[in-house]
Structure formats: C-alpha cells, structure tokens
C-alpha cells in the first residue's frame, strides 16, 4: 500500500516536470509577420498543413521543387480541419483542404488575415466499391437514385428489383447489403455526401453534407484502409473510398450513371472531365460533383490550398506564389503516376487568376 502511494506521487512529480519542460520544439514559428524578414536569394522555408488526401502528391511536388528553386516546403498532413485551423491561427504559410471552408470558418479567417483564397491544386474522385464475388470491377451499374437508396437503407438486398433492372446480365444474390462508411471525419465523406445531397432530396433533408454525418447505415471503418478492409471482409458489403486507393488495392468499383445518364467508371480522365466545360466560379469554391460534362465521373472534386490574399512577408509570399505557379503547370505531370487527376485547362486558368491576385503591401507578388 505504502509503496503504491509512493509510486503515484513520483508519477505526479514526473507529470508536472514534463508539463513545465520546454515546449518550443516542434511547433512551426508563426508564418505571416510584418515586413521583409528573409534576405533575398537565401533559402526560403515555407510551412503548410492540412489535407491527407493530396499528401503523396504534395510531398513529391515539394521534393521536386526544392531541386529547381531555393524554396523548401514543410508540409504536415494533419487533416483538412487541422489545416483550416492552422491557417486561421496564422501558424502556417498555407493550409490545405479537401472541403470548402464553412461560412463561419471563413469569417474567422478573414478577421485574422483578410480574404482567404481556395486555389485548386489537383483532383480526386470517390469510388463506390463492393464485395460480390464473381462480379468484376465496372460490371455493376448503379444510378444515383439507387445509390442514395442503398445508403438510406431503403434498398436492403442485392437482388432488389431497383438494382436488378439496371443489371439484367448479372445474377445478384439474395443477400443483405452491408453499407460501410468512414467512421472518422474526412474529405472523402464530404465529397460523397455532397454528391448524395445533390442527387437525392431525401438525403439532403435527412442526412446532409459534411465531413461526418449521422449515417442511416451499418458499419464504420477508420480511414480508406478501414473502409476497404470492411468491404473486403463482409460478403455483400458496399463502401466508398478514394479512387487511388481502390485502384492500388484492386477493389472492384461501380459504374455510376452521371448527370447525362451515361454509366461512367472512375478514372483520371473522367475525374478531370468533371471540371472541364462546366461553369466554374472565379473564387473556385465549388463542388464539381454530379458534373454536367457527359464524360465526367459524378463523384469528383478539387483539393485546395488555402492562403491569404494579403501576404505580410514579401519574400515568403513571393516564394509561395512561385511555388503555386510551378505546381499548377510543371507540377501537374507528377499527378498521373500517383493517381491524381490533373486540373483541366478551365480550372488552371481560374487558378492562375487567383495566384495573380495575391499581394504584399498592395503590390502583386507574381512576376510574370
């Protein structure tokens, strides 16, 4: 008894010491600060944080870019929510997100550093995957209505007539559909529920669109790997994962009817097509799900870098816009090998205009 008490007190002292210790390591120094703090010509270090989805591409970009410039970028993939929080608090030079900031978040950021830009960098899409032995990838066809009804649990069995009539050639089992969703908050969920809200009034009213929602159905998995793992293990399961993940792990996916009623499989081309030949607003705060382009896969979207229009450190700001310009042009080629869909010409033009609008002390930063 005595000994146990002694140990507890020792532990308490240890905790206190740990709490009082230096805490300066590891936290990035605040980015935006007044005036020119970095001498021109020296190595510029930029800090960014946010979305995990584009991380493989971003880290490739920043490696390549360090070779051709004197800019080194440190990017931490802490999730879109964290990226929005950090750019708002000014602890990073840029944030990254798979979703558009909410009105509330934008107000908070604008109070801190003025107008904030959403600059699209690359595109991704969400594959609807399934586990039905004997039905190869792309063979199962679904309409948006059927998909929404499955996720609303209105269609509970695979041999439901609403699925069967779309797939006359397939023999569908009399089996429960186990609906799998992401248990953690995620940009993938944001795109997926955004799509369902556009194609189903009932979904929009009952469930809605967010990084995490009140799911009517079944099982949750942690991360893409968690969802894919559940779908693999549960016969008759259906789930949604990033296309790159489904492709690399060879999980069969659904051919989904798009807005012009063509059945489209997810691919880099059909993903890029979602933002080509459609109306894009200048601020690019747009979800291109359910695109009107007849070649488009309907569950596709941008991922954005977030940065303030008014940069306070001109050297850093200049390095930042140069890096963005490079990523929007030379950088796009690295996407395909990593399964990211390049931005279509329409989107690049809009993004260029946004980068040109970035200023330091009311001077535009981009010198071209």
């Amino acid at each position: 008894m005595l000994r146990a008490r002694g140990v507890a007190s020792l532990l308490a002292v240890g905790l206190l010491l740990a709490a009082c210790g230096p805490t300066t390591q590891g936290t990035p120094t605040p980015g935006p600060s007044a005036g020119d703090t970095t001498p021109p010509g020296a190595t510029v270090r930029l800090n960014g944080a946010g979305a995990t989805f584009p991380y493989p591409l971003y880290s490739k970009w920043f490696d390549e870019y360090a070779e051709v410039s004197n800019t080194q970028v440190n990017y931490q993939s802490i999730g879109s929510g964290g990226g929005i929080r950090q750019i708002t608090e000014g602890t990073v030079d840029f944030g990254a997100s798979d979703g558009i900031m909410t009105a509330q978040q934008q107000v908070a950021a604008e109070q801190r550093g003025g107008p904030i830009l959403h600059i699209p960098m690359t595109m991704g899409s969400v594959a609807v995957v399934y586990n039905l032995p004997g039905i190869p990838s792309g063979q199962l066809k679904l309409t948006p209505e059927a998909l929404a009804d499955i996720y609303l649990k209105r269609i509970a069995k695979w041999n439901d007539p609403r699925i069967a009539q779309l797939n006359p050639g397939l023999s569908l089992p009399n089996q429960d559909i186990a609906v799998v969703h992401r248990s953690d908050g995620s940009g993938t969920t944001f795109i997926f529920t955004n799509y369902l809200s556009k194609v189903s009034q009932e979904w929009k009213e009952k469930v809605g669109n967010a990084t995490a929602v009140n799911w009517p159905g079944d099982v949750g998995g942690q991360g893409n790997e968690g969802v894919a793992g559940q779908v693999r293990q549960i016969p008759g399961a259906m789930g949604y994962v990033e296309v790159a993940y489904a492709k690399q792990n060879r999980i069969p996916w659904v051919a989904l009817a798009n807005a012009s009623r063509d059945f489209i499989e997810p691919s880099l081309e059909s993903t890029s097509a979602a933002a080509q030949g459609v109306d894009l607003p200048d601020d690019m705060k747009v979800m291109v799900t359910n695109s009107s382009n007849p070649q488009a896969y309907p569950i596709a979207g941008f991922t954005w870098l977030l940065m303030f229009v008014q940069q306070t450190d001109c050297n850093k700001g200049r390095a930042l816009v140069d890096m963005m310009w490079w990523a929007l042009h030379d950088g796009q080629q690295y996407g395909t090998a990593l399964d990211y869909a390049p931005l279509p010409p329409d989107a690049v033009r809009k993004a260029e205009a946004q980068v040109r609008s970035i200023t330091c002390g009311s001077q535009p930063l981009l010198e071209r």
Partner: protein
Amino acid sequence: MARPQTIEDQTHGRAWRSLLRRPASPGDRLFQGTTLLAALSLLGLLLAMAAYLFYVAWPSIARFGVRFLTGSTWDPVKEVFGALPAIYGTLLTSALAMLVAVPVSLGVAIFLAELSPRWLRAPASFLVEMLAAIPSVVLGLWGLFVMAPVLYPLEKWLASSLGFVPLFRGPVFGGVNFLAGGLILSIMALPIITAVVRDAILTVPAAQREAMLALGATRWEAISQAVLPYARSGIVAASILGLGRAVGETMAVTMVVGNGYRLTARLFAPGNTMASKIATQFNEASGLEINALVELALVLFAVALVVNLAGRLLVRWTVARAAGGGQ
C-alpha cells in the same frame, strides 16, 4: 471475535504515529513537504482537467442539458448531439469484457500460482505479461483481420439458429460489432487481472492450504474454500483495474466495434463507445461538435470515476466482510 492485525495496522499503528509526532528535523520536514506537494499536485491536476473539460464543454451543456445524456442521435450536420448510444456502448462492451476476462484470468492465475509445474511457471507468467505489452493498435488490427472473420460464421450461425433471442438477432455484418469490441477489451484486461490475482493468491499463507489438505480436502476444495476467499479483495481489486482499462480503451475497440450509432440489445450490431467516438470525430470536428465531444469526454471521466469509486467501496466491503466473518 478479534479482528486480525493486518500489515497496515502495524505500519500505521501507534508506535509509528508516535515516532511521527516527535519534533521533526528540518530534513524530515522538507521531505514531508515535498511529498505533500506531490500528492496535492496530482489532485490539482485532476481538478484542473475536470474544470477545463467543463469549460470547453459548456456551450454543449447549456444547449442540450439532460438531453445530451438521454438523446440517441449524433448529427454534426443538424448539430444535434446525444450521447446515450456511446455511454451504453462503453458500459456494454466493458461488461462483456469483464464477463469473459474475470473467469479466464482467475483460471490462469490459479494455474500459475497453484497448479503449474515449476518449469512452466516463469515462461507462462512472462507470456501473460507480454500480452499487456502489445500496442492496442496492433491488437485492433489483429481483431479486425483475424478475430472478426473467425467470429463471423459463428455469429451468422447463432443469428440463424437463436435469432429469436434479441441478443442474437441479425443481420450480421462481418463480425465487427459490440461482441467483437467486448472480446478485444477482454484480451486487454486479461493480463492485468491475471497478474494482480496471481500475486494475491501467492500472498495466501501456505498454512491455509496445508490446513485444508490436512483435513482431507481435495486440491479444488483447498483452492476454492481456503485460498480464493483469502485473496478475495485482491481479486476484486484486480477486476476493477481491468474494468478501468476497458472503460477508457480507444484504439483497439474503435477498429472492431463497428462504429454504428444506435441503441440496441443486439450483440451483433455495429456499435460505438465514448472513447471511440471522441477519437474518430475529434480531428475533423468543428463548431458545436467540438464542445459536444468534450462533454462526452467529461461524461467518460465521470463514468471512470464512478467505476473506480464503486470498485474501491467493493474492495473495502469485501475486506470488511472477510475480517468480520473470521478466517
């Protein structure tokens, strides 16, 4: 019947007290002050944590009141948050874990302390302790990729043959559910309970056993009537330690509990726990959901406190009963 003297009586007895009352040397005083500070800092830390949780949770507490505890929807879109399914899930999975872990641990501990051949004792104890060293994320992955697929056909069979019992009603989705959560927790609680129970059994004086055996008792009678009653408070304390682990465990349980969010008696339904809900939602939460998640943490804090207090009372009660009943 006179109450037998315990070690605690001796160390905290009159002799020791009078020694303490002696005029203390400056060194002693310093020592006493330091330890007092250490003890108080622990209390302070606990209070500061509770106060901070309360402060951050306040918008949610003010908005939902009791409905937070009785509501069963968690809807970040409409900003309606009710914690009941998560509270229920924590209690259910912990109870399942205890149901499995306590008897198994008792068996393992009795074997290790009383029945095991000498050469097996050390390696077997070592293996049990190794189980405690497995990181929970590894255990979770094992649960997801090994345990759940093994349970799945069993559960399907149970659901089809005993489906009329609400507990076993289908549909079954791939073996990730309340039951899997409970089983993973039982594996995590097992080494803790086993180690403490084994130590408790080892402190039972040999004379107890010898007396029983001399009276012609079998091994089983000696253990069940002389050894286990003597070790009772240790067994209860061990179970409480294990329960504490089960209530707060996050990672492993998240991976196998299925992450549904509803109130149901079905063991095969995908469920959730408080710790798991906090862990999965916090990173991407914003606005009121953050406050609600912190309130959930506060509730978890309270549940853990109640469980611990109840455990302490139970230990005291068993000790008192053992002493009063006379060995």
